[in-house]
């Protein structure tokens, strides 16, 4: 039995449906991420789990117990807020001790547990400071220590790293992974940052317009997006619209206007005449001055239109004969070579048919 179960949860605000018939099971010890653009309903879903809001339809179960209507203070679920929500009139130690005080833990025990919790997040000796005196990363750690001190069954994290700068964010990501492994508590993490979701999670639920549109491990979501939205939202993807012509098992050909029939693979049943897109990631597109056509590969010619030097890699935008642009990505690791191509160079593009996914509209 899953630790946390959401069955058919729907939440409306007037005519707007923020969460639409969501079904979800999250296992004990899992690092689960809800990923989606702003307004997709991920924060509303998190608030339903925390108990700040109740669904109009559906149920929420924790350990098989229905907690749909349980008030937040009676749920063994804690939240790390985007704003951290540290009580500004209490010291760091009092903030961390708050859940223990509410649970009427004996005073003597509170002191030692708070000290330990602060040591766990590398804030030993900071207990007497006020939240305003801490840096962003330190506030973050206090918020986490406060939410974990009475060992909840589930920790909810609402875009906890959004307010930090890039360097600190990367460091905190590593710390979060280590921490979650250490305490073994289920994390439900909300973010709109796909890179963060891929790096942190055991499993990701991608949300769009109130629904969970795809559920799976990070690599599965990245490698095998099931919809055009997921392919486009996670990472970057070249998308070519077309109609299915021929089918053979998981292989098919797609008629793309201006480019002819291109080979692709599919993971969902399809039939001739279906419309959809061919999705291929830039790093799967080979780019070279000359590529000999090989069976089982899609082969196109174009001119370098634009290039984006990103340090470790360079992204080339290649204009095809019909005028459309495709992206190809090349690592700059080859010794001594900074630029492989210049704008205006004629290049060949190629990718294996398995690397190109057909996605229904």
């Amino acid at each position: 039995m899953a630790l946390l179960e959401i069955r058919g949860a729907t939440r409306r605000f007037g005519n707007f449906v923020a969460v639409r018939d969501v079904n979800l099971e999250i296992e004990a010890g899992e690092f689960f991420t809800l990923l989606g653009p702003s307004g997709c309903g991920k924060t509303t879903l998190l608030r339903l789990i925390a108990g700040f809001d109740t669904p109009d339809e559906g149920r929420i179960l924790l350990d098989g117990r229905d907690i749909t209507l349980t008030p937040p203070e009676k749920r063994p679920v804690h939240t790390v807020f985007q704003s951290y929500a540290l009580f500004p009139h209490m010291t760091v130690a009092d903030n961390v001790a708050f859940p223990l005080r509410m649970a009427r833990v004996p005073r003597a025990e509170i002191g030692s547990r708070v000290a330990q919790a602060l040591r766990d997040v590398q804030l030993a000796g900071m207990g007497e400071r006020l939240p305003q005196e801490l840096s962003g990363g330190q506030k973050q750690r206090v918020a986490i220590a406060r939410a974990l001190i009475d060992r909840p069954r589930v920790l909810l994290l609402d875009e906890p790293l959004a307010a930090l700068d890039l360097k600190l964010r990367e460091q905190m990501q590593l710390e979060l992974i280590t921490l979650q492994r250490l305490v073994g508590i289920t994390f439900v993490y909300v973010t709109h940052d796909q890179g963060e979701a891929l790096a942190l999670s055991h499993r990701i639920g991608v949300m769009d317009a109130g629904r969970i549109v795809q559920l799976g491990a990070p690599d599965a979501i990245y490698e095998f997006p099931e919809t055009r939205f997921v392919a486009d939202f996670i990472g970057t993807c070249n998308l070519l619209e077309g109609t299915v012509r021929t089918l053979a098992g998981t292989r098919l050909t797609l008629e793309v206007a201006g480019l002819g029939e291109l080979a692709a693979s599919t993971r969902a049943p399809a039939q001739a005449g279906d419309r959809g897109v061919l999705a291929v990631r830039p790093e799967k597109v080979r780019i070279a001055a000359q590529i000999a056509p090989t069976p089982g590969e899609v082969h196109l010619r174009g001119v370098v239109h634009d290039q984006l030097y990103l340090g470790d890699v360079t992204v080339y935008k290649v204009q095809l004969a019909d005028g459309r642009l495709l992206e190809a990505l090349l690592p700059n690791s080859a010794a001594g070579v900074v630029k492989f191509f210049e704008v205006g160079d004629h290049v060949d593009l190629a990718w294996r048919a398995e690397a190109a996914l057909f996605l229904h509209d």
Partner: protein
Amino acid sequence: MSISRGVPKRRSSSMTSRARLARWALSGPPLAFLAVFFLIPTLIMGLASFGWPGQEGGLSPLWYHDAAGWHFDLTLGNYRDIFTLKLFLALYLRSLGYALATTVCCLVGAYPLALVIARARARYRNLLLLLVIVPFWSNFLIRIYAWMIILGPQAALSRGVNAVLGLFGFGPTSLLFSPFAVLMGLVYVSLPFMILPLYANLEKHDPALLEAARDLGASAWACFWRVTFPLAVPGVIAGATLVFIPALGAFAVPDILGGTRGIMIGNVIEMEFLQARDWPFGAALSIMLTFLALGATGLAAWAARRGVKAYG
């Protein structure tokens, strides 16, 4: 394990009676207090303005009950008197004139100061603002009394004015107890009410707008009339409302500085209640005053909406 997927009872609906109790526990006490000590007295004033004065002053009962049933004893006479007796119409006009003159003087006096504060460096701004607020908080009567000293017959100002008048063959005049004294007093007590909203408005403006205007060839005056001032219109209207309405109903300023020559409607209301003891007529005068004030507020709100529309 099977759990029906029906519609759960929302917590809010199951706690309706408790939620309603909490709502009334919070809003009930202030609502009750203000209903009793503000709303009802104001409504009584409205009713009393249609009544007759009692035999020994005050208010005669508005209704009575006898064998024949309930009788109402109401009249429109108080309002008829206000509109037919030239004395009272003239008083309202005078009060409107004072309030208008006060508003214009305050605007002229407040604008440069508000502009200087808004353009000052951030760390001086709060101090400059505090300097405006401090005299505003010192006792109202003291601020009026200060003008008694300044305009008094022995003060340098009066002596100087009378010396000049003497040169031209005029007899001496008193600055105190005159319409001039009333205007000075009104401007003095109202000025901060104009400075603060003007400042709040001007502070939001981007100085780059002015630079852009100058850059595009506008003269300093053109800049002011075409850029700064139109943008400040909402602030001007807010300030004008805050100055105009209290000035219209002023009582203490004309009472202390006006003498018999500087009387305003507020003084007449006071006389009707405390000396003539004709409450219904006093009530009608106050209700008229309130309607004038409400009308001015409405006009200001309308102008503010138009101003905002016209100047974004």
